[in-house]
């Protein structure tokens, strides 16, 4: 339930960066489908941090390739 809400809110946060209008799903890849560059990722991460009042260490970002993985990471960081 919690995860569903996080996922739904994440889709809303990602949407402004979805310049190509890709249909977002669990497996959507940030690099390959959304083609986000490192600077855009930076903005998105800052917005996510503020949304849930969490810090997302840079070290974990390379492992978060898809929307689903990002959702799991946010769930974990929320504690």
């Amino acid at each position: 339930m919690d995860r569903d809400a996080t996922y739904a809110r994440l889709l809303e946060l990602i949407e402004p960066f979805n310049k190509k209008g890709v249909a977002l799903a669990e497996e959507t890849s940030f690099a390959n489908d959304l083609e986000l560059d490192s600077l855009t990722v930076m903005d998105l991460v800052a917005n996510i941090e503020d949304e849930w009042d969490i810090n997302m260490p840079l070290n974990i970002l390379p492992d978060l390739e898809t929307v689903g993985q990002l959702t799991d990471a946010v769930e974990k960081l929320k504690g």
Partner: protein
Amino acid sequence: MTDLLSKFDPYIAEHKGLLDTGVNDPFGVVMEQLLSPTRAIINGRETILVGTYNYMGMTFDAEVIAAGQRALAGFGAGSTGSRVLNGTFAPHIAVEQALKDFYGTKSAIVFSTGYQANLGMVSTLAGKGDYIVLDADSHASIYDGCKLGNAETVRFRHNNVEDLDKRLGRLPADAGKLVILEGVYSMLGDVAPLRELVAVAKQHGAMTLVDEAHAMGFFGAHGRGVYEELGLEDEIDFVVGTFSKSVGTVGGFAVSNHPKFEILRLVCNPYRFTASLPPSVAATAEASIRKLMTATEKRRNLWAVSRQLHAGLKAAGFRMATETPESAIIAVLLPDQAGTVAMWHQLLEHGIYCNMSRPPATPAGIFLLRCSLSAAHTAEDVREIVARFAAARDSLPAAA
């Protein structure tokens, strides 16, 4: 066999596409001859340099060159190794003493470049279980230092005090924390609100490191940097700097009053596992740093020409990256990559060398022509630079 270089094909194609438009290579300018700190021969043409970091114009200073020549003759061409393993030369000690005198600190450690100073300081100070909180616009050497170390790295929005406060507030109260700031940010030439940022860092019990690479020599009463100008000398734990800009040679350093600072020499890999500076380079740096202590006329002129260029370009209708001249970096905003490259090319054809900068070196969507001034520029030089900027703009195809 997978060609490991094929991952760079998009960059190869982009660079080729750029050169195919017939422009000079913005990333491959060759100075065939140096006439002075502000003049070089490029493509056979005498060119005004506004794209070096020779802020204090020290590269051709007669005493600096003489000091280097003496050390070159006396100590030989190279250091042939690490100071920890292969020995320190007298000029290394002398340049560290000059730094201690310049900054008024108890300790100074010299690295082989400023890049390595940041790699070493950042990766060694913050270890496993510690946290680094850095400005999003930090220099690549700071980011790379974070990657080299084992601390958790968290980024805050550029120069945003509230954002730093929030991120520090989310960290465990008793964890080791290092906040990393820069006095002047080199892309836009904007100055950090260090007083507010440092106050927040202190409230949360964090130590602070400030990179003053682009402020040495002309901010603060002794030229120590933005932190000195703002009266923060007792608040900052570590200052990092470079010899490659105002000092006019090559090398990097960190200074501090921390009583345990000297141990870093034995535990910091980018210090102990690389060759130390050639003694001649250390000697030129020492001579230059000592002269910078009293270079009030140079400092006054650097500020005068920086303000004059900002005002001149603004009056000529260019969009400036900062509303007012905040440092010796005066950057012009352009709308896109193609327009920036075209203008940069025309400037070089008009005998002006400045820097073209684009994302990811710049913040998202920002394309810049960056000018950096030198104390060796004259008011007449600046009038000429502004006139040539206008002429270069007029010669763009779109203007015809």
